């Protein structure tokens, strides 16, 4: 059976990877992943994405937490 390509959302610090059907805006993908937008940067390759950026199916994005503690 054919699997339609989806958006891959990688959360390396949580060691988690999600597959979400697109197209979706970055802010919607973050909501789906349960991540607050002001605590992360979102990247695709060497590009930084704004929260209103539309992501197409077949794309992989990384969600990097920026919160440091201690």
């Amino acid at each position, binding site marked *: 059976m054919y699997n339609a390509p989806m958006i891959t959302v990688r959360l390396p610090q949580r060691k988690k990877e999600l597959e979400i059907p697109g197209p979706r805006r970055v802010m919607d993908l973050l909501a789906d992943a349960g991540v607050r937008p*002001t*605590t*992360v*940067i979102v990247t695709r390759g060497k590009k*930084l994405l*704004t929260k*209103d950026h539309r992501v197409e199916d077949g794309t992989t994005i990384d969600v990097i937490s*920026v*919160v440091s503690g*201690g």
Partner: protein
Amino acid sequence: MKCKRCRRAEAAVELPSHHSAFCPDCFFVFFRRQVAEGIRKLRLLAPEDRVLVCVSGGKDSLVLWDVLIDEGYETEGLYIDLGIDGYSDRSKEKVLAYAASRGKTPIVVELAKEGVPIPEAARCARMQECSICGTVKRYFFNRVAAEGRFTVVATGHNLDDETARLLGNLLHWQRGHLARQHPLLPGADGGLVRKVKPLWRVSEVETAAYGFLKGIDYVTEECPMSGDATSLVYKEALSRIEDRMPGTRIVFYQGFLDPSNPLRKGPEAAADGNMAREDAPAADALRAAEGDGEGGAGPPQVCVECGAPTYTETCSFCRLKERVRKARSLRVARVSR
């Protein structure tokens, strides 16, 4: 979304707190101006300063080093290897790689060689890792700076760090700490080197974006010892407020730093009438708390063990080292029985 500065390129960084969005090139200009403004406003650095930049391998400290180099300051990096399995090696690797990319070789202090690797020291002294880490780092920041004749120590604390600390101090009415909290900790006679936090105006998102866009390869994993850090709770609370009311954090902190703020005129800050800088709190009172983690007024004394400046007979680092040494001897004695 277009860049609000050049109005041509696609925006890469959106900053609701500044009602703005920038393309990478314009964001670099914005970010450097924010840091330069923070330095200028509180007179943190002078062009002739020799700056010891404390680098952990994380985004904030490496970005700080990067900006200071680009701004033309004379800098050297100091990396403290905390002796945490795996994490310390990976952090050190990032620091060495970044330093090499800028033609630098950082000064490295290995806590295992100094007899106080953080995990073991915490176990032996029965203290929290973050607390011990703070004591040990402050000690070596100052010692390396004094020995290397640096005029100032710079750390990568950002707006989120400073406001989280401020919120914690306010919630617990730590009046002494409130009176002393400031991005500038003036130097004092007796070997205490000035300490500054040039990133106090920029947020964690901004430093992360700057690091990413500049291609700085930093450690993204958190210190495994910091999971229970209370600062994370305060950060989350402030971040939720910032979500709903962008710009609250900088207003909160700038209002706190206002010289007319009565909270900043506690007994410690008022003790020294000789205010070297308009916005700067009293040097001795500040250093009494931050330099050695002890209270006290007047210039520091000399530690009887190591000669470091301290407000007690033996500095907190030497006391810690002694506790670790005693716990080790006890353990060895139990095993050999």
